[in-house]
């Protein structure tokens, strides 16, 4: 099945971590900020989001653990974070695989049901 190909680039546990990390709206907002701005930091995210500094740091740690973000080379004393290269590719690949598999399955479902009429 075409759906079984999605684990090729990344282990299933890792992919599960990526999805789990992306399942939280706050963490998605952080990813969006990174897509928009390139790098970010705990103080900057704390100013943008309605959560505490501690919560920001915790969410960043989750994103880091899932391999989605990494520390950017230091500029000054502030620790900055950026998206890890290719981090979102495997999640996107899973979706593309799953949608293409369902495209075929639904076409077969349609054929099977309509043939029996």
């Amino acid at each position, binding site marked *: 099945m075409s759906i079984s190909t999605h684990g090729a680039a990344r282990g299933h*546990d890792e992919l599960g971590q990526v999805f789990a990390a992306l399942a939280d709206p706050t963490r*998605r907002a952080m990813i969006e900020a990174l897509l928009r701005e390139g790098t970010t930091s705990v103080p900057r995210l704390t100013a943008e989001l309605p959560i505490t500094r501690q919560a920001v740091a915790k969410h960043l740690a989750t994103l880091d653990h899932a391999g989605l973000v990494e520390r950017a080379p230091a500029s000054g004393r502030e620790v900055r974070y950026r998206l890890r290269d290719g981090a979102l590719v495997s*999640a996107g690949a899973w*979706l593309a695989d*799953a949608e293409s598999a369902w495209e075929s399955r639904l076409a077969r479902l349609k054929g099977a049901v309509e043939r029996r009429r």
Partner: protein
Amino acid sequence: MAERTEERAAQPSEAAARREVEIEASPEEVWEALVTEGGRERWLQAPEREIQIEVVQEPSRLVWWWTGEDEPPTRVEFEIVSVPAGTRVIVTESEPAFPISLLAQSFARVAA
């Protein structure tokens, strides 16, 4: 759009593949092809994955969990809607956070 029921809203997953198709047949005919093993054999072609049914709302909504040795568990939801030309089937496959899907599997085992 069909309204989101409570137990669906409780799912935190946002990584979801979504596809739909229109079939010239009644919702009941489509339902039979989705809910029965014999019906699924005619089109699903995924024998390596085990199906555990979570929600059965005949003939408008069906949810199953898909598990397989080499696959992460996924949740597959079908919405079956009557339309003038026949029936629209909307399928959403999502890969929820692991603890939730494993929890669902253990519930399914207890219920079985």
